[in-house]
């Protein structure tokens, strides 16, 4: 079951350049929340702050508070490793491990966390691939084919399965379908629709129709600030802020 994410007064920098300004958001549990906005508005940066991937960039800095369930993400006693174990991430370009089989790709996170029991791995791999809607397509050559031998859409679903295998509570998706063809995209969207019953999903997208299709809540970012955060329906039919309206109606971005 997923948990909620609370963000308070989040500020982030790349060196001297500030990328996020006082962002505050309450991401509800077990729902999909979309993060939209024009290029460079900080939506990817925001999401990467949630699982402490932001700090892996040289000279990156951050201030503020992020809570995932009861865990203080930037608390003194919390390690980045702990956070990333509980938050899964799917990247824009599918990045399965090319030297590993499909099976090993999905099991990678588990093995890192010390699970080596064959039976446990088999079950979790199968379950994760089911959840990622990939099982039927790969079940015959799980260990024979490498992760990189699949098509683009399949690779992305493999990455989703890989992330799901460690049983995160929150799933972050950074434009997961932008590198895929329309059919794969719709499969991914269908997946998100089903996954949100079990997980809290935050999905970055530049595609407003996609946000409308899969997310119940949407946050609109502009130049590093969160302009508006509300139910998707409201954002797209009756936004409170003029800037949101301008973006929705395509006047810029």
């Amino acid at each position, binding site marked *: 079951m997923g948990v909620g994410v609370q963000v308070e007064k989040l500020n982030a920098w790349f060196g001297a350049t500030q990328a996020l300004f006082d962002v505050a958001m309450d991401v509800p549990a077990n729902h999909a929340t979309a993060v939209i906005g024009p290029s460079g508005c900080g939506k990817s940066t925001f999401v990467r702050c949630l*699982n402490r*991937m932001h700090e*892996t960039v*040289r000279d990156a800095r951050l201030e503020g508070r992020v809570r995932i369930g009861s865990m203080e993400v930037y608390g003194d006693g919390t390690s980045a*490793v*702990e*956070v*990333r*174990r*509980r938050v*899964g*991430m799917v*990247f824009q*370009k599918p*990045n*399965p*491990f*090319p*030297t*590993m089989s499909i099976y090993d790709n999905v099991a*990678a*996170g588990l093995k*890192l*966390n010390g699970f080596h029991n064959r039976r446990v791995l088999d079950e979790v791999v199968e379950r994760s691939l089911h959840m990622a809607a990939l099982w039927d397509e790969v079940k015959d050559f799980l260990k024979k084919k490498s992760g990189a031998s699949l098509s683009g859409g399949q690779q992305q679903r493999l*990455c989703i399965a*890989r*992330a799901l295998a*460690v049983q995160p509570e929150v799933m972050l998706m950074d434009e997961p379908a932008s590198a895929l063809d329309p059919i794969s995209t719709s499969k991914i969207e269908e997946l998100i629709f089903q996954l949100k019953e079990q997980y809290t999903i935050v999905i970055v997208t530049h595609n407003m129709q996609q946000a409308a299709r899969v997310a119940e809540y949407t946050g609109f970012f502009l130049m590093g600030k969160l302009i508006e955060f509300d139910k998707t329906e409201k954002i797209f039919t009756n936004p409170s802020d003029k800037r949101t309206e301008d973006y929705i109606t395509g006047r810029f971005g």
Partner: protein
Amino acid sequence: MAATGVTIPLIPAKASRVPDRVFSGAMLFCGLSLLTIVVLIVVELVLQSRLSLHAFGWRFFKGTNWDPVAGDFGALPFIYGTLVSSLVALVIAIPLSVGVAVFTTEMCPKPLRGTISFLTELLAAIPSVVFGLWAIFVLAPLLREYVQPWLAKYFGWTSLFSGPPFGIGMLAAGIILAIMIVPIIASITREVLTAVPQQQREAVLALGATRWEMIRVGVLRNARTGIVGAIILGLGRALGETMAVTMVIGNTPQIAKSLFAPGYTMASVIANEFTEATGDLYLSALVEIGLGLFLVTIVVNMLAGLLVWSVTRGMPARARA
């Protein structure tokens, strides 16, 4: 020369194609020189060793007796010496090179990176004789006074560290070789590690990995073919290294199990005895050793080249020292 509105061509309309043809022909000639050199090497080596080839045939590489006086020549002790010294060098050099490469690409703060790579490049520039000089007067006494007795005390039960500690010998040769091949293995490993895309690292981190786990699963694993290629390239260099080894290996044609014992390598025997060779058969035997060395290094370097090329996609090589 008043302007008359007539365009003056830079090249006369009936420009001769000859200069271009001559030039490209000259360049082709230069390019072919590479192939010519290889052919020349093979031809001369075979030609000059024909006496020995004729006299001994394949026995040459299996014989253990090197007796110039009696005119009996067997190259096995040198093959053994070359292989063992190179192996010792690899065992020492691999963790050093991969370690320093991982350190520079994954762990090192940026300003330090340039310094360390400069220092590694400098290490590569030191000539073999200079290493040999240092090995004779610094390394060998160090081994003789401290390292070898220590090894004999704790590991003497393995037959690897038995016998009197001379300082010079197979171990010294292996160590100085290791120092010499570290820069090559390290620089290619560094290239290969940098070629691993950043997304692979991020994918592993996002699963909740520690930094070492990220390096292990996301970087080293992806780069392993290239690293193996780098190691084989280092091996190729170690096999052919002459001066430093000659100066500390002890120059005794024998096959001994202990690393403390003196030995002899293929390159060293040629270096030491070529100008002293009395008689055509003697010289021919030495050239035949050179032929063997050539063939071995060619095969090893070809293998390494293929492995490294498969990772770096055949990009032109940097001017590696």
